[in-house]
């Protein structure tokens, strides 16, 4: 589903290269964990997948369903099924969460040529998803992410992911800022979305999240490249021995 080939990318403004020859393949139905020390390019990778304009791809390609997505803007990628759960979700003052959900869902439906969702159907879907995440419907009347706690923001991200039903989910440090109870709820939400048609890229610094979202593959990133790949055992090994060994080996 996702094929990243010899990707090189830099910060557009400064020209600093961050991704240096990254290769990664994630199949449909697969949950791939991306781990690595701070500054290894994990978050940057998630932004580049979503099409953030601050980064320039200088070499290589990103294939999604066999097609290059490099020329697509973020909205087009989203409509095609790419979803990024942000590490730091943005506040949108004055725009109620419910209203935002409606606009987002219907924008994507329109882009795909589907009819807009009727309000009662939308409400039903939202209620169901919010229930799974133990979110209060009253919260959805508040402006998106404004005054939300860290945990509430992360739940709101997963809620959007559940409602937009993407094919490729990229989760950037979704565990940061979550206490253990919230982490379980969020992980349950993510696990419910696991399906043979859907791929997930779970970016995390710690093994902890992977106890709840058990990955099929684990990839270690260092200085903008994948330096080691393995199964979930690799994550446990990292937990025990730290990154130094692997990162050192590669260097």
């Amino acid at each position, binding site marked *: 589903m996702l094929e990243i080939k010899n990707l090189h990318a830099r910060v557009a403004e400064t020209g600093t290269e961050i991704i240096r020859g990254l290769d990664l393949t994630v199949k449909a139905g697969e949950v791939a964990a991306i781990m690595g020390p701070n500054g290894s390019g994990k978050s940057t990778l998630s932004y580049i997948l*979503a*099409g*953030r*304009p*601050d980064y320039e791809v200088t070499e290589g390609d990103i294939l999604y369903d066999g097609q290059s997505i490099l020329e697509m*803007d*973020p*909205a087009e*990628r*989203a*409509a095609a099924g790419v*979803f*990024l759960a*942000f590490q730091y*979700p*943005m*506040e*949108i*003052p*004055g*725009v109620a969460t419910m*209203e*935002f959900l409606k*606009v*987002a869902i*219907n*924008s*994507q439906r329109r*882009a795909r040529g589907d009819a807009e969702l009727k309000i009662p159907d939308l409400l039903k879907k939202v209620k169901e998803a919010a229930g799974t995440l133990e979110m209060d419907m009253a919260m959805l009347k508040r*402006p998106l992410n404004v005054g939300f706690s860290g945990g509430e923001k992360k739940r709101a991200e997963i809620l*959007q992911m559940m409602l*937009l039903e993407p094919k490729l989910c990229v989760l950037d440090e979704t565990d940061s800022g979550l206490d253990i109870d919230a982490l379980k709820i969020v992980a349950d939400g993510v696990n419910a979305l696991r399906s043979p048609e859907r791929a997930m890229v779970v970016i995390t610094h710690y093994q902890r999240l992977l106890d709840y979202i058990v990955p099929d593959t684990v990839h270690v990133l260092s200085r903008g490249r994948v330096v080691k790949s393995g199964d979930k055992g690799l994550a446990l090994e990292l937990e025990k021995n730290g990154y130094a060994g692997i990162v050192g080996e590669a260097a």
Partner: protein
Amino acid sequence: MPAVQETIEQVRNIDVDQYKYGFETLIETDKAPKGLNEDIIRLISAKKDEPEWMLEWRLEAFRRWKTMSEPTWARVSYPEIDFQDIHYYAAPKSTAGPTSLDEVDPELLRTYEKLGIPLKEQEILAGVRKQGEPSELDAIDGNGGRKVAVDAVFDSVSVVTTFKKELAAAGVIFCSISEAIREHPDLVRKYLGTVVPTSDNYYATLNTAVFTDGSFVYVPKGVRCPMELSTYFRINEKNTGQFERTLIIAEEGAYVSYLEGCTAPQRDENQLHAAVVELIALDDAEIKYSTVQNWYPGDKDGKGGIYNFVTKRGDCRGRNSKISWTQVETGSAITWKYPSCILRGDNSQGEFYSIAVSNGHQQIDSGTKMLHLGKNTVSRIISKGISAGKSNNTYRGQVSVHRKATNARNFTNCDSLLIGNDCGAHTVPYIEAKNATAKLEHEATTSKISEDQLFYVMQRGIPEEEAIALIVNGFVKEVIQELPMEFAVEAQKLIGISLEGSVG
């Protein structure tokens, strides 16, 4: 909100030019020659069949105006205006003194249909064709929504006022100011010029000399006006100025909500609009005045557009009275406008809610004045400025607490949002308190639509233009909520349209 969606669709539907009201209506016009002198003023007065005192008032203003000079303190720049190069009177020929819509040029009616804003007005204007059959009008309004009575002003004259009978039954007078001068001279004489005196400022004085029409509203004691009142202003003729004069009086315990909408055709040359609006609220009365201003802003290179130099002031003359201004300013090449409140009565309240959107080469210098004279007076100012393109957007506000205004309170919040790197936002507050018990708060923020925010919204599948409209509509929500519902939807659309093409 469906409005956000509609905004985008509407934006998509616009081809090259984004100003949809830029058409010109070809109707026969009765026009005075260009230029300004006492003869022209006599002509206007005669055309209106005015009493002698009115003519005298005008002439006195004109003589005073000749001694005055244009104000230069606002943060706007434009070439000198040649006041002799303007027609001061233009009227659709066939509508001299219409009594019903049947007498109105059908071309004119089509114009109002084409204008399409506000929706409610269009509906009612169409419905007016069945005037004298109020039941059918009720049917049009089928869903139990509010009715809106409309006074339409085309260039210099009021062409139609709707729902007159129904309003009269409630004791409300709603007519053109020309008609009021003829039919209700005592009321007009008692109040006209008492809030904005002849000598007030350059443009107000000019208006006093040459105003040609406008609306008049009188709500008697204890009456809650049974429907929204609305005036629709349109400048059609070339080289004409529009100088309208509006006077609204709410007697003791009365309530009225009044809406005003404006558009003009696209022209290469600039046109002048200098209106005066006076509001008077007596004891326990409340006046709510809403404006959606969409005069032609000029083309993308800054050519053409309306110069909008307007004096609007409300006088909370009675105890516990309240005046509330809400404005959505999206049009005009230059806007110079400060709707103000004189809080004279004890416990009176003034409010100013404003959204000012500038794009292209537009220049806006707008704000309010809150003059606290009475005890326990309260004012509230919420201003949202949005600048895009190469425009400049200034909030200029004055809060002044006089010596005897014990326990006066003001809260001011001015937020500016910048889109792009070539525009400017400026906040110029003047605050003075001569009474130590005053409590004044002022908050101001300036922000840019951040790349982060935009990326986040787009990542959810919302295309760029739509994402900006969504963020901006969120930014102005607080003010939009103050508008009557029909206008709120229109205002959101307008904001979306005004910002079209604002991101590269």
